[in-house]
């Protein structure tokens, strides 16, 4: 049940669901325009580069199994570089949003929208940008890959941290003020521990999603240049070009080993350790366990780490800087901030107006209404795929998840498996599917689609398992006693009971599917190219043709659709689930 508990640990409202109202917020629109303008600026910058991006002298990726461990290590390091960047981003940006009202006005809607942007779409711009930043060096491409992973991870982590900072229990906050804890001490004694479970859970989710992007971002084609960084993703791309199914299988196996190791060696120990930060006044019956953590504890590693960190903490807390001084006066909520607030809003408005003007200039020069229509049409096709696939996945995994979740022995076995599968980058498996489609002459428009949910369906499964295992025994017993008919039982008992969990899973799954469409709607095997009509392939095609205006258009349309789905479907559903069906 450790994993079930784990899922509960991180149950802070999901990004995009925590909002107060359903009404479209004027800030959302403003921030959306700003983000779109940023894309335009990036595309504009990329278009300026007429020379071939760079002549990289990277050692070419070879399909020699002896190289594979090294590649796996490089891939893993990229991943950790990105998670490190995401954590720094989280601490800085989320703290800023929680402490400053002005920053909050911009940051919170920006996080919400950025999470809905298909990050794979603008990989092109970032590659070009970083290659120019570090010309003729591998570093540029490395940075681009790390940045791509970062953009898939940072937002929900920052949001979780921000939410925790905003919901620090009032009595503990009073104690901290009462004993005049310095900001430094307060952060480490109150705010960071309180935020830890949510942040760790979100980091874990982010890392699960991150493997997909690390694989996708290692081999990037922009125009006629292909950058292949040594790693599993590039190995895979090379294997596809060479039609080497054995190499693909090896990549899958390596990936499995890597993810298993990261789960056992890193995250389980951290989750087991972080259990003490759960804000509960009662001891949980079952605590998450980790053999690695037990090993650590027995070997006094934990104690030594604690000694070192507390020594560092103490040394810093004695430094004569404002951060470590007690706050002298009571902080009274200033009521004089009105004027500067209005000024701040005006500044935002001016920037947004300028951004809008630039977008119009940019699109006028290169795009017509016809293009918008095409993109929307393609978007609807992809939307149709997402809807159908999520429905099919739900129809399969909700019953399975309920079955598993209601049986504790099964839940302990399958929950880690489902989480493992969610972390496994599905794009590693794509070539196998493509081989099948090619050899059986199937219609790519239909048969490429399942790839979109291949990796994301597991979010539905493990959330449903968590929901079903948390379902109260007395309610189950009551419904058994009343001998509810099967259909009645599903409709009146279990579906409402797991709804909050299901919505969380389905939202994550559908968001991931949109993102995956960019790599799933186009696939190749050697010289054979398969394509399904949709917004994903639209963006992928435009990227390959270095047609930046259409890349931007595709990304913007996709972002609008994802945000609209979140606002019109998932958020109301989540609120309903929270209000009506949250059990205790």
């Amino acid at each position, binding site marked *: 049940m450790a994993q079930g508990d784990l899922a509960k640990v991180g149950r802070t409202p999901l990004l995009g669901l925590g909002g107060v109202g359903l009404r479209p917020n004027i800030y959302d629109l403003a921030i959306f325009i700003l983000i779109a303008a940023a894309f335009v600026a990036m595309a504009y910058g990329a278009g300026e580069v007429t020379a071939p991006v760079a002549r990289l002298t990277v050692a070419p990726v070879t399909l020699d199994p002896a190289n594979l461990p090294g590649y796996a290590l490089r891939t893993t390091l990229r991943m950790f570089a990105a998670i490190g960047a995401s954590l720094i981003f989280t601490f800085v940006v989320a703290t800023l949003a929680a402490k400053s009202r002005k920053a909050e006005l911009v940051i919170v809607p920006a996080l919400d929208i950025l999470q809905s942007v298909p990050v794979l779409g603008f990989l092109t711009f970032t590659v070009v940008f970083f290659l120019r930043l570090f010309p003729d060096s591998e570093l540029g491409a490395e940075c681009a890959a790390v940045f791509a992973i970062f953009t898939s991870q940072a937002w929900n982590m920052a949001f979780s941290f921000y939410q925790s900072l905003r919901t620090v229990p009032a009595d503990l906050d009073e*104690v901290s003020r009462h*004993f005049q804890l310095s900001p430094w001490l307060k952060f480490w004694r109150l705010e960071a521990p309180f935020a830890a479970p949510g942040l760790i859970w979100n980091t874990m989710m982010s890392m699960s999603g991150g493997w997909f992007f690390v694989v996708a971002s290692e081999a990037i084609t922009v125009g006629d240049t292909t950058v292949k960084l040594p790693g599993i993703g590039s190995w895979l791309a090379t294997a596809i070009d060479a039609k080497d199914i054995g190499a693909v299988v090896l990549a899958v196996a390596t990936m499995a080993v890597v993810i298993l190791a990261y789960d056992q060696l890193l995250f389980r120990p951290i989750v087991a350790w972080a259990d003490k930060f759960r804000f509960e006044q009662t001891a949980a019956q079952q605590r998450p366990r980790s053999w690695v953590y037990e090993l650590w504890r027995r070997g006094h590693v934990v104690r030594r780490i604690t000694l070192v960190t507390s020594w560092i903490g103490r040394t810093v*807390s004695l430094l004569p800087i404002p951060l470590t001084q007690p706050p*002298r006066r009571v902080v009274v909520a200033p009521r004089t901030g009105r004027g500067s607030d209005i000024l701040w809003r005006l500044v935002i408005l001016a920037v947004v107006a300028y951004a809008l003007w630039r977008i119009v200039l940019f699109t006028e020069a290169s795009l017509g209404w016809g293009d918008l229509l095409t993109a929307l049409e393609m978007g609807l096709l992809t939307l149709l795929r997402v809807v159908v696939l999520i429905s099919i996945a739900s129809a399969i995994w909700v019953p399975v998840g309920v079955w598993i979740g209601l049986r504790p022995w099964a839940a302990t076995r399958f929950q880690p498996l489902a989480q493992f599968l969610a972390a496994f980058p599905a794009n590693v498996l794509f070539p196998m599917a493509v081989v099948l489609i090619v050899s059986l002459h199937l219609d790519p428009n239909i048969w490429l689609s399942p790839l979109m949910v291949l990796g994301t369906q597991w979010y539905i499964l493990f959330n449903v398992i968590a929901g079903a295992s948390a379902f109260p025994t007395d309610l189950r017993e009551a419904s058994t006693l009343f001998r509810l008919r099967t259909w009645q039982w599903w409709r009146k008992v279990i579906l409402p009971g797991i709804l909050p969990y299901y919505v969380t899973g389905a939202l994550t799954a559908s968001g991931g599917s949109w993102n995956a469409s960019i790599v799933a709607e186009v696939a190749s095997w050697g010289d054979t190219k398969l394509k399904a009509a949709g917004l994903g392939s639209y963006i992928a095609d435009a990227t390959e043709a270095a047609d930046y205006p259409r890349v931007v258009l595709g990304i913007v349309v996709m972002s609008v659709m994802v945000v609209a789905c979140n606002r019109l479907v998932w958020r109301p559903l989540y609120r309903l689930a929270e209000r009506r069906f949250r059990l205790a």
Partner: protein
Amino acid sequence: MEIAAVRPASTADTSPLVAVDHVRQRYSKGSGDDLLVLDDISLSLRGNEIVSLLGRSGCGKSSLLRIIAGLMPASEGRVTIGGRAVDGPAEEVAMVFQTFALFPWLTVLENVEIGLEAQKVPPAERHKRALAAIDLIGLDGYESAYPKELSGGMRQRVGLARALVVHPKLLLMDEPFSALDVLTAETLRTDLLDLWSEGRMPISSILLVTHNIEEAVLMSDRILVFSSNPGRLRAEIPVKLPMPRNRLDPAFRQMVDDIYALMTARPTGKQAQGIFPGTGITMELPRVSPNLLAGLMETVAGAPFNGHADMPALAGPLQMEIDDLFPVAETLQLLRFAEVAEGDIRLTEPGRRFVQLDPDDRKRLFAQHLLAYVPLAQHIKRVLDERGTHAAPASRFRDELEDHMSDTYAENTLRAVISWARYGEIFAYDEDSGVFSLDNPS
């Protein structure tokens, strides 16, 4: 910890330790009038005494405590501690919280040390003082436990040790025993009083906020009784009974009875319906379930009370504190099912009749009284009757209420009326759409 007798054995010295001077506290509601929480409070605390602030919820006693603690500024007036004006958390003051407010991720020892850590006391001395405080308060052996492993009583001991370890002159206690069960609370009170009378705590005075009358009489040298809405200092009662005090002592009982009487006495010049703040449809109503109303009427009607009960006598066996009991009693008074005065509750003729009726007739009688004596219920019913659709959104009434009271009170008032109207079957409310209607889903 130094156990030196900080408290001189002599009688209270005369210079005030704390002086509260014409303090007013108001909250802005965003629109319209501010909400006055504390009105012109002046009091002083000398050394060597335990003083209780006794009042019902909403009388602002916790706000006053926080103003003295320097956790929030007063809107008007000033507070001095040891002659210095309070402009933030003062070093001489330590506080014990109702909810214990322990950090769940820190051990008992680390929790106790937190105040010293903030004062940058070196680790070795910090450790020594914390262990001494833990020892004093009877927690030895629990140093490395986490709060979630402890019972409520033990947790509050940690809260007490954490407050004492910083050697405050003044100990502020915010309903410290109200989250504990009866037995645990009593043990902790006794232990605290023992430490106090033996002079083993390094403090000079205790200011205790409570809504428990017996607790106030049991523990304090002086009781300051607050009235509600807005909070005003209503009476100052010195308690001269010798320590340790016995709850069964007739003088003790008499004092408890007197305070009950004082707290249920109608302020002069107010009508019966003026027991709740506000008038007419904007009267603030407490959320009291119809079951509790019926239950109290049945208890008072039955033996040994036979329709007339002494509130302290009623509160004891029911294990209800004044914050539980008073709202029920006063709602009965509002509905003219009972009369509350001088610490007594007496059923009216309709109240006695109600107890005899079967469930359907009870509902009818309740509905009559609800429409006759609760203006808001009357108002909603009239609006529904007048409208062709016989439906009206709750937001319409909520807005009216919010013009006169805080959002929370408005919500509570509306919830109270919804619950009573459902019982009396006078109108229905749909949770999902937030609409009142005359439909009866029967």
